[in-house]
């Protein structure tokens, strides 16, 4: 029994598609059996809602009169600097960008209350944002200074373009030192005081398609409350990691680069986020539909939290010093029980990725498909898989010697 995406889209059009979430599919298949469910169910929806730093948006703000060449100049949105190394009025704003006058960690731990992610959230919420810019002036672009309110609805293009999102599995962060640590994995209490993890586990997109059999370049997805697409594999995409018998990576592995029109997204799914002592970022909502084309693809979506293992990593020494040491491997079922055992100690756990929001995303995507508002796409090209031979490189520094 094999289905095609075209057949599934036909059923979506007729309002007959059977769509369930990656959580619901587990019990359904337990009751009905693999063969029957592979026949009956057309789409399994996944979801994840977590902080994703390699995110940002590009904008074409429109030409002023007289014209200004922002390229090579300086641009700020609500005092947060945007990248200007593009044509006259194209700019890129990264989620982790900070105002020049933010004290960073000079007053430790820095609060990082407002950054690029917060600007993106405010723009999506329809708020006016203060654009200030200076340029060097040319014959064809004489204007040298610009201060104006801008609003998402008035600018030409506003495109969310995240170069690394939706990590397929991630580290569990702990602290073996005797002082408190402020990290991108949250506040880590000394002497194994807590353990923070960040994955939707059994609902997470790439954990339900561990070998990228359906998710590829061009896959239409839920992105930030609107519709987006998988643009490429994400940076640091690393399919060649240790995997379990079920094919699921036991280390951080695949990633997605995603893109979509910011104008149709919603602020509750793109939330400006602050990590004490670390920096600013954005929490992004992503949902990916998995077409149940075969029993094999269905089997992958049956993965449960008990079948997914993550490495426990020390963020006082192991992580910053790039040591390969792993303190333990724990399942997401253990992580979600409220505590794990590391070096004989009971360590309370907390999540940075929101499971209730991941469920909400999977359900919204399910409703869109059921209502015939969202159709599946055939990938244009696959993501690099285990066979790609990708090696995750570190930077081996070559000192630049002064002459």
């Amino acid at each position: 029994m094999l289905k095609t995406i075209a057949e599934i889209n036909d059923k979506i059009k007729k309002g007959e598609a059977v769509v369930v979430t990656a959580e619901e599919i587990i019990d359904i298949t337990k009751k009905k059996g693999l063969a029957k469910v592979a026949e009956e169910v057309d789409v399994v929806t996944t979801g994840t809602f977590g902080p994703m730093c390699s995110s940002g948006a590009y904008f074409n703000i429109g030409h002023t009169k007289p014209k200004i060449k922002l390229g090579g100049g300086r641009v700020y949105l609500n005092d947060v600097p945007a990248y200007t190394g593009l044509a006259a009025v194209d700019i890129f704003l990264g989620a982790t960008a900070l105002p020049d006058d933010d004290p960073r960690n000079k007053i430790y731990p820095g609060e990082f209350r407002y950054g690029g992610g917060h600007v993106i959230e405010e723009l999506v919420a329809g708020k006016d944002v203060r654009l200030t810019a200076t340029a060097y002036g040319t014959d064809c672009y004489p204007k040298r200074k610009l201060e104006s309110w801008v609003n998402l609805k008035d600018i030409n293009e506003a495109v969310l373009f995240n170069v690394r999102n939706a990590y397929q599995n991630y580290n569990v962060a702990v602290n073996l030192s005797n002082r408190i640590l402020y990290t991108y994995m949250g506040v880590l209490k000394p002497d194994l005081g807590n353990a923070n993890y960040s994955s939707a586990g059994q609902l997470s997109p790439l954990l339900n398609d561990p070998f990228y059999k359906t998710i590829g370049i061009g896959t239409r997805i839920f992105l930030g409350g609107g519709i987006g697409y998988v643009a490429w594999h994400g940076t640091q995409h690393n399919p060649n990691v240790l995997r379990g018998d079920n094919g699921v990576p036991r280390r951080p592995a695949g990633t997605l680069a995603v893109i979509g029109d910011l104008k149709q997204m919603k602020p509750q799914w793109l939330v400006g986020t602050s990590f004490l002592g670390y920096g600013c970022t954005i929490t992004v909502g992503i949902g990916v539909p998995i077409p149940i084309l075969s029993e094999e693809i269905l089997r992958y979506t049956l993965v449960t939290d008990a079948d997914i293992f993550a490495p426990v990593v020390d963020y006082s020494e192991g992580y910053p010093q790039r040591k390969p040491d792993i303190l333990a491997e724990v399942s997401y079922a253990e992580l979600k029980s409220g505590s794990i055992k590391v070096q004989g100690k009971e360590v309370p756990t907390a999540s940075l990725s929101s499971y209730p929001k991941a469920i909400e995303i999977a359900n919204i995507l399910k409703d869109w498909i059921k209502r015939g508002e969202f159709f599946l796409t055939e990938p244009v090209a696959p993501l690099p898989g285990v066979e790609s031979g990708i090696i995750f490189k570190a930077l081996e520094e070559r000192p630049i010697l002064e002459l």
Partner: protein
Amino acid sequence: MTVSKRIVLHFPPRIVDQPIVYRLVKDFDLQFNILKASVTPGREGILVMELTGGQRNYDQGIKYLTDTGVKIQALSQDVVRNEARCTHCGACITLCPTNAFSLEPGTRRVLFDHAKCVVCELCIKACPPRAMELYF
């Protein structure tokens, strides 16, 4: 009838050196449990405490405090969760020293129990979407 309330006391600088809590015990037979204190001679002091006793004594004790010049607030007003900003991630759960946060079984939504909060403010800056807010 016994009452037990968590309150925030603001002492103006001129009475910071007076034995006010002692009088609450001695004159009004009230029990106290200090949750947080910041009292420096010559400056405004803040005392967060749980005050327990008979209703009549409690009311008289509060009147005594007010007459002395102490400003009183209910503690529950101090740290509140901005429900619209909370993403229910759970980063706060292991940081709270009094376990005021917990996960609702099944939904895994984060519950905030006001009654357990001692306004230590640890969660405020540690909350990634900054959903915990301090109100004075």
